[in-house]
């Protein structure tokens, strides 16, 4: 995906409102209308189930966040080599990386998740070697499949971004590093990787928000994240709107926090001019 599309699909720091522009007459009126709407929702809809489920909701949010951060970090670690070999690697590394990115980006995440969970999950028990290995207690759970699918997906999308970022680092900087007598590894560690990550950072923000938006899919393979808790509420209370509205609100808050955190992080990186 291009930067532009990631920005169109994911909420990014550029969209945060500034405090100065926030208070205009028509906005104050709109906020009052919205406040009236919120009060109406709070008063006229049923929220008596909320206290009972609060602990489970909190736990669900933690599971969602754990899914997000673990898969984003693992996926990024995979994305660096995937992007790098596509820029400098020999053809026997370049080709598989390219095919990996195309296949993962060309199929829905839900299908990949179900392929891993139902497909591999039904295959593993047939091999006694796997049943007796130390991994078996984990492979019987659902979350490793969720983590695997989300990691693979993030690695594919971010690998494409890193490819562009590695290719976009000006050649002069790499030549300067060579002229200083840096070895290949030192040059990669000191110049190429930091510069590429810096270039990829705005897109990385967007991709992380997109990853947050993908996490509820793991609920379809029985991982109990915040989405699964809300589904449970809906089954037990027969309410349609209230739990879903709360869920949307929770995700909006999580996105907002994530975006603000990214902006503070990005502002701390010193840049010279543009």
């Amino acid at each position, binding site marked *: 995906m291009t930067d532009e599309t990631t920005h*169109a699909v994911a909420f990014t720091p550029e969209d945060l409102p500034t405090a100065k522009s926030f208070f205009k007459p028509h906005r104050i009126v709109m906020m009052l209308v919205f406040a009236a709407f919120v009060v109406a929702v709070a008063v006229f809809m049923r929220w008596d189930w909320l206290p009972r489920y609060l602990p489970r909701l909190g736990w669900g949010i933690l599971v969602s966040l754990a899914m997000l951060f673990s898969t984003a970090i693992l996926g990024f670690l995979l994305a660096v080599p995937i992007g790098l070999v596509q820029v400098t690697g020999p053809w026997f590394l370049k080709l598989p990386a390219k095919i990996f990115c*195309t296949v993962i980006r060309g199929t*829905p995440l839900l299908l990949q998740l*179900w392929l891993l969970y139902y497909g591999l999950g039904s295959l593993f028990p047939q091999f006694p070697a796997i049943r007796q290995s130390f991994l078996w207690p984990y492979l019987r759970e659902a979350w490793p499949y969720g983590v695997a699918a989300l990691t693979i997906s993030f690695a594919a999308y971010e690998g494409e971004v890193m490819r562009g970022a590695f290719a976009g680092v000006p050649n002069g900087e790499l030549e300067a590093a060579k002229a200083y007598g840096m070895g290949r590894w030192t040059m990669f560690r000191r110049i190429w990787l930091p510069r590429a990550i810096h270039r990829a950072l705005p897109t990385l923000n967007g991709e992380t*928000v997109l990853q947050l*938006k993908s996490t509820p899919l793991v609920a379809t393979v029985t991982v109990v994240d915040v*989405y699964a808790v809300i589904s449970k509420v809906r089954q037990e209370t027969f309410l349609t709107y209230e739990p*879903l509205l709360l869920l949307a609100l929770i995700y909006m808050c999580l996105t*907002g926090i994530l975006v603000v955190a990214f902006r503070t992080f990005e502002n701390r990186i010193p840049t010279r001019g543009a």
Partner: protein
Amino acid sequence: MAADSLVNWGLLSLSAPGWGGVLLQGFFNSIQIAVGGFTLGLALGVGGAFGKLYGGPVLRDLLECYTTVVRAVPELVLILLLYYAGTDLLNQVLALVAIGPVDISGLMAGIFVIGVVQGAYSTEVLRGAIKAVPAGQIEAARAYGMSPTMVLRRITLPAMLPYAIPGLSNLWLIATKDTALLAVVGFSELTLVTRQAAGTTKAYLLFFLAAGALYLALTLVSNVFIGMLERHARRGLAVNR
């Protein structure tokens, strides 16, 4: 044994004992929803982009809320909300004007849901593309005395196309993949059909890989057409990108 279920190609045959026909029907449903949703989204996006750029302050803020909410909330949650709330609200409105409740087909609901989500995305893409059109071109059109609709039809829309196509083609690919999420609300598109076929025959890997191949084929074929479209829209443009 695993090897047997992996190579039992008969399960994919098109006639009754095989599930190939069912899979293709699901694939057809997916494409229908993707096309419908993308088209609806494009219509919403054109309106949204012009509203955001040229509308009054209230309209602009309302559209900002729309795009913000859609971009901050997971598609899966939006699909559930719109699917249940949308059908429910429609029936309540129909009850108010004294028409009995209608049974909304899954196809229409799916197109509506995907369309609303895509509408927010294409609003953002088109807004960026319209802003990339040099202001002088639009001013020149106004100086010739063209009415706003004529400026839109003759200048803004054609001139923004080369800037919009990369973003829009990505949105099309996202639309084809988002149709899979409708499996969660029980619409029998490719992913759900695949899961049913796999669950019945226990040949999970075979069916999920087959469905993956179908999705991938759709993406690759789309990419070919997108490339052709992009070359066509970029003709006459200086090649600096």
